[in-house]
């Protein structure tokens, strides 16, 4: 298939394809992080993860509209504020949901699957009623559009670089919070042994609520960032949910490193395969490989030893 192309052409394409893989990797990490925290640390299967992301996207859309109408001079920077707002909006909703719904179901983990699925349907309909059934277009500031010309034939999408940077930033922050801070120690203690953690004076309910809120908040930031590359509509969250679970389960729940390794291997496999065959076929082969590996290693790539 490469016979007709010059070496220079091929070289540039491979560089750009490498970037495509890295961008896909960042997207996967970003969308899976929130879920990995909730699923990994709390064992809650949050089917409404996609809807929390879309809440972030809608917040971004509203912020963009607000800036366009009232502060057009600051429009080029609105995206940063939008991401912060998205984090707090989704995080607050997450904490509310944890308080109303999830905390009653900790002893019945499979029921959380049904409950959060129902929640996702309710949120979808709520978005439809509030924002309308049609997709909304989020207008981006000019500097975030287009691509960076590295050489004559190599171009890298700016939004891809933005997502990559954001992913690195958020991953480092999450790692810091979970592994360095006092609160992170409490979270890990609760994961390892809830009763003992309670006995030594950790308010496990509060830890749960903030963990859930953090996971949802990160989902909101991801949704906000994905307005650059995807659609914003009441059901857009569904587009991400399957890939998200795939990454988290493959990586091994409860492991941040696992999520990253899994996102990396899935994205690289997929983008390499996509280049040599059609998109659907690449997806099928990727999924087959994941299924095969999970059969050999049901706990995922990395798994913590946890006392149950």
């Amino acid at each position, binding site marked *: 298939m490469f016979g007709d192309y010059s070496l220079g052409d091929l070289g540039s394409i491979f560089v750009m394809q490498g970037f*495509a893989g890295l961008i896909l990797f960042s*997207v996967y990490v970003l969308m899976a992080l929130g879920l990995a925290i909730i699923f990994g640390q709390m064992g809650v299967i949050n089917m409404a993860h996609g809807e929390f992301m879309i809440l972030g996207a809608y917040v971004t859309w509203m912020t963009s509209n607000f800036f366009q109408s009232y502060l057009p001079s600051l429009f080029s920077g609105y995206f940063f504020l939008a991401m912060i707002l998205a984090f707090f909006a989704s995080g607050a909703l997450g904490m509310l949901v944890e308080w109303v719904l999830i905390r009653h179901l900790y002893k019945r983990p499979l029921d959380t699957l049904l409950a959060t699925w129902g929640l996702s349907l309710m949120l979808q309909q709520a978005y439809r009623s509030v924002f309308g059934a049609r997709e909304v277009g989020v207008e981006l500031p000019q500097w975030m559009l287009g691509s960076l010309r590295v050489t004559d034939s190599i171009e890298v999408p700016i939004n891809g670089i933005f997502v990559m940077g954001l992913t690195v930033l958020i991953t480092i922050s999450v790692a810091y919070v979970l592994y360095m801070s006092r609160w992170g120690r409490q979270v890990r203690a609760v994961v390892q042994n809830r009763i003992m953690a309670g006995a030594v004076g950790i308010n496990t309910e509060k830890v749960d609520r903030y963990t859930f809120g953090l996971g949802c908040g990160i989902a909101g930031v991801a949704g906000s960032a994905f307005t650059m*590359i*995807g659609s914003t509509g009441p*059901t*857009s969250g569904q587009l*991400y949910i399957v890939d998200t679970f795939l990454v988290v389960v493959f990586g091994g729940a409860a492991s941040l490193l696992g999520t990253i390794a899994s996102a990396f291997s899935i994205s690289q496999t997929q983008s390499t395969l996509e280049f040599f065959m059609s998109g*659907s076929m690449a997806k099928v082969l990727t999924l087959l490989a994941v299924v095969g590996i999970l059969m050999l290693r049901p706990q995922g790539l990395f798994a913590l030893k946890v006392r149950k």
Partner: protein
Amino acid sequence: MSDEANKGPLSPLRRKLLMGMAAVPAITMLPRASFAQAPATSAVNTTGLAVTDTEVTVGILHSATGTMAISETGSIQAEKLAIEQINAAGGVLGRKIKFIQEDGASDWPTFAEKAKKLLVNDKVAAIMGCWTSASRKAVLPVVEQYNGMLYYPTFYEGLEQSKNVIYTGQEATQQILAGLNWIAKEKGAKSFFFIGSDYIWPRTSNKIARKHVENVLKGKVVGEEYYALGSTQFNSVINKIKLTKPDVIFTDVVGGSNVAFYKQLKAAGIDLSKQPLLTISVTEDEIDGIGGENIAGAYACMKYFQSLDNPNNKAFVSAFKKMWGEKTVIGDVTQAAYLGPWLWKLTVEKAGSFDVDKIAAASPGVEFKGAPEGYVRIHENHHLWSKTRVGRAKLDGQFELIYETADLVEPDPFPKGYQ
């Protein structure tokens, strides 16, 4: 364009009047049969449909919830507008149209169930409904079994024909061939890259397009790619496009994927004003989500654009906006959905009866001169004769009409040499 709509330039006063009559467009161009004395119910309804001396009931069956609500909302709005206008103009055979709306909820078995409910319980005289091919395929056996009449608005892959269905959108050859001919001639295009969502409509459409490119235009298809419905990552295929440097990118990506595809195309530095792209799946509705700045310069090939400059369309657009809000946009399918109630009304009046068998038999040859897209006529095969148009997307999310076929294009749901 109809002869009547095209009687030279209108006087400014008449044009103003026409545009002002937002609520009742097209009346001036329609026969006044509807104001005649209403015939007896027993004469016009021999099969027990829901027809009384003053009312006739039809069904509207679309997804108002679920993932397809994005697309089907426009169709529901257009059908309600058409029904309101028909009622304002005196109804059908002296009877007002009442509608029962059912929600297919983006779920194909639900569509079949609701169609059955409309036909068996409500005895509706006709159903305006369905959007995806999957929902139509689910409803088809039901309307055939219970002998209903379905007006289906979406452009689709063809390979279907039923006594019980009128297809008011274009079938694939009608939509695609003229567009490919135009771009081959206008841009000297020889190499094409196809990219679509992975289901029956894009696959069938691309098969037809490939045959046409290879056999008729003597060009070459340098790539043909399909992505699962809902895919949001297109960077790899965009790199392939960069590598193969096709003269034209030909796309039939649908739904949320569409938004992702155009955003990433733009981000990858592909300038659609220099790289011709022909889409058969992006209407004004989709651009709302994609954003005009991401798709400006792309060509779309279909039968209707909101920006069409004719009196019918101006009246239609202003009536639509008056009913559904200034910000709503009207895409190809929305317009086709608007044709459904009107074509049904005209057919009922031609047949002088609400009986489904008589309507099915009377349909071929029915013409609608008030159509926003211009003149349409029902073909023997229950599809519409219509013009095919190419528009170029502008920054504001509207299309600028670039080309239209001189004559109506014949619908050909089972194209020879393209299967």
